[in-house]
């Protein structure tokens, strides 16, 4: 083939290929169908902030944010169709008051500065979309502009708030544990806001006006919170109530109060709550009123009658040599007021109060009168109170109880608070009072015996012992192991147990009580037991004294060869008898 003919052939082939490509494009173009658009009605404008009805104080900077969405619909000649998101062209904000921060009112997010005039204001957001129709399509995607408005309230006046309790300058009694025992201080306030209303009132306390502690919030009138002062310091406190209105504006009120610790305390006190025994009750543990202490109805100074029985000395003025049953008592008012008054009073003459442990004609505090008042504004009276506060002695005289009450009164004479001790006689009536030598002997072996909380119910004898008395017998002695021939001295192991010459609770003592009384060691403790057994081979029997001592859990013990005594259930715990290890019923 010639060179020319070859060139013609190549040219011809290129023309043919180009034509084929053009034809292919034409065929493809002819295959895509034309769409017809419509705007539909889905163009939506939303204001996210501020919300409708929101309230703002004058001048508040209010963040405004909004958004818009749009979907357009299309169809084709062959019956096809669908929707597509459209773009938003622009946002514009309008208001009928206030200003736009930095003059910026366009865009999805702007800041509105509330006007200085209270009132109802409208904020409007307007937006528009674009016509995003592809070339060749028919119809329209250009919606009309959309808008949304919200109404907001602008408040020009903060709420009013008034603390109604406690009163400004009030003296208040500090509470005591446990929490929630009803001695909390009520904090109360009134609050109002006619424009936007009260959202809440919060209560705070502070001792330095800097650090405030929130005590509670209330959203409904009457606004109230409780202040648990159990562990609070005494002294001056600031109490503040803060009210919030709907626009976030606040109003507050502050009062100054003084918190006093008022406490009448005694050594040797036993706290009856839950049968908890506390010899000296810490302030933080004291319940009030209702703390019981015993007093001796038959005080003794060692004097005895012809039969050796103690002679009551509660009618003696003293000083009484050897007096040892007055009970130390302490008054505490903290902080010490320099105005107002402090009153110590008694419920009846069953109790007397002296300023010396051995009494004395000129040392009567509550002897001939039922109350003693110290005027704290008077320096000399205040000094007298300070001298007496830690040096009072209570004395019982007569059957029954008497309440001793310490009261603090504010300068206006109002009662700030009080603390009371209920004195009650105990045990003495169930047996006879121990003679001095007996008291020395038994108290020496059992240091927990508190004078007048125990009495002697049987004389010393070796005819029977504690185990015998625990089953109500007075002519038997029960030894752990050994019997003595010809006598009523019986070895429990030998006669009731397994006779292995070893005293064992399970195999010896339990059979003993089961055989004697039917008791089994199933009682849970002193309160439901009939017999308590101690680790040091001692048994005590439940004593049903319904007199003064009836308030206590009493037991009766024959103390070896010594006297039989009535005592509180725990007073024989210690080195002589060991601890209580078994309870029978």
């Amino acid at each position, binding site marked *: 083939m010639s060179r020319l003919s070859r060139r013609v052939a190549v040219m011809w082939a290129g023309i043919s290929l180009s034509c084929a490509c053009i034809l292919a494009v034409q065929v493809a173009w002819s295959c895509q169908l034309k769409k017809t658009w419509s705007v539909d009605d889905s163009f939506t404008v939303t204001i996210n902030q501020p919300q409708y009805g929101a309230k703002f104080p004058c001048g508040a900077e209010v963040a405004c944010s909004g958004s818009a969405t749009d979907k357009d619909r299309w169809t084709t000649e062959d019956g096809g169709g669908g929707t597509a998101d459209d773009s938003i062209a622009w946002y514009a904000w309008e208001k009928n008051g206030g200003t736009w921060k930095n003059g910026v009112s366009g865009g999805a997010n702007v800041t509105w500065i509330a006007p200085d005039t209270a009132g109802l204001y409208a904020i409007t957001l307007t937006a528009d979309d674009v016509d995003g129709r592809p070339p060749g399509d028919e119809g329209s995607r250009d919606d009309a502009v959309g808008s949304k408005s919200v109404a907001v309230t602008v408040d020009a006046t903060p709420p009013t708030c008034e603390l109604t309790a406690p009163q400004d300058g009030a003296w208040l009694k500090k509470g005591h544990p446990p929490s929630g025992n009803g001695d909390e201080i009520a904090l109360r306030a009134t609050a109002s806001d006619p424009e936007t209303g009260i959202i809440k009132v919060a209560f705070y306390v502070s001792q330095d006006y800097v650090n405030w502690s929130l005590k509670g919030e209330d959203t409904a009138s009457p606004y109230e919170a409780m202040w648990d002062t159990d562990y609070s310091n005494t002294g001056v406190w600031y109490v503040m109530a803060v009210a919030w209105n709907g626009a976030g504006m606040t109003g507050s009120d502050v009062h100054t109060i003084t918190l006093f610790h008022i406490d009448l305390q005694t050594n040797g006190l036993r706290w009856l709550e839950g049968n908890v025994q506390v010899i000296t009750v810490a302030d933080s543990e004291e319940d009030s009123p209702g703390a019981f202490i015993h007093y001796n109805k038959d005080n003794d100074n060692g004097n005895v009658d012809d039969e050796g029985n103690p002679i009551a000395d509660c009618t003696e003025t003293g000083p009484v040599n050897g007096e040892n049953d007055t009970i130390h008592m302490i008054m505490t008012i903290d902080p010490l007021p320099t105005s107002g008054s402090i009153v110590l009073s008694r419920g009846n003459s069953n109790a007397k109060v002296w300023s010396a442990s051995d009494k004395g004609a000129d040392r009567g505090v509550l002897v001939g009168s039922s109350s003693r008042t110290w005027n704290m504004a008077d320096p000399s009276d205040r000094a007298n109170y300070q001298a007496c506060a830690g040096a009072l002695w209570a004395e019982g005289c007569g059957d029954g109880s008497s309440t001793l009450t310490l009261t603090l009164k504010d300068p206006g004479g109002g009662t700030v608070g009080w603390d009371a001790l209920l004195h009650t006689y105990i045990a003495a009536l169930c047996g006879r009072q121990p003679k001095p030598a007996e008291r020395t002997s038994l108290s020496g072996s059992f240091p927990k015996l508190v004078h007048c909380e125990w009495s002697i119910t049987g004389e010393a004898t070796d005819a029977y012992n504690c185990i015998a008395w625990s089953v109500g017998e007075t002519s038997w002695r029960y030894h752990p192991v050994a019997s003595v*021939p*010809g*006598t009523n001295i019986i070895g429990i192991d030998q006669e009731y147990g397994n006779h292995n010459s070893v005293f064992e609770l399970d195999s010896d003592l339990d059979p003993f009580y089961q055989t004697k009384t039917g008791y089994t060691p199933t009682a849970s403790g002193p309160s439901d037991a009939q017999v308590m057994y101690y680790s040091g081979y001692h048994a005590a029997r439940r004593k049903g004294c319904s007199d003064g001592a009836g308030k206590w859990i009493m037991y009766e013990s024959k103390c070896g060869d010594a006297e039989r005594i009535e005592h509180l259930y725990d007073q024989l715990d210690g080195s002589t*008898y060991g601890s209580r290890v078994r309870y029978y019923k």
Partner: protein
Amino acid sequence: MGRWHEVSTSRRPIRLVLVLGMVTAVSILTFCRYTGTSASQQDVEALFTQAYREWIDYRSSLKTMRSDVDPMVAFDHNSFRRIIALGVPVLPYAVAQVQEDHVLGYAIYKISKARLHVRRSATRPREYVWTVDEFPDIRETHGPPDSRLLWKRWWTEYRPTVRARFEELHREWRLARSEGKSADAERLYAAMHDLGVLALPAILATISTGERDLAPLVSELTDGALKTDVTAEQAVAWWAKNKARWTLPEQQSPAPAPETKEETAPAAQ
């Protein structure tokens, strides 16, 4: 007479004392005879009263708060040992006093060497039953029988039967021995022993018939006062000399009627 007179003249004061003494002695003997209390028995009572009082004081001095102290400490005192040493004659007073003081029962036990057999049956609490071999009617369910009651019955019911009980046991013992039943013989010997010292008169009466095999029993009941290898004659001679310590007054001489004794007891004091 002259000499008597001279003598009497020169020794008038002495004679007067002697006469008064004789009158007094006769009066006392008459009184004692009437009241049934020999002079020595009065001494026993006084000695017992004195020793018992001292023993009570001693026991009081032991006063302790503990109930698990050794109970034998109460008996480790000279006063108690003196009571024991008074022997069988003190038993009437001890048995009377034990009703007030069960601890004294150990003295009766020690003196009398009587062994009452108290037994507990069953092994489970509340099923226990205590019985006494010597008093079959006793049946206690809460504990061993009261020792005071046992001594009272021992004294009033059991004591009069001791001789008969011994004779029966002795007869059975001899039979068991002759038949070679050593176990039975041993048991019967123990039973004779448990009769206590109140059986001594009967035992010695038996020995006096020539049965010296019972001499060891006497020796045991008298804490070795009589040797075990004595002849029957030696045993009888020993008994004649020492029986006052081992017998009650009525066993030593014609016994007065108890009613008379009781009626006149206050006057004797």
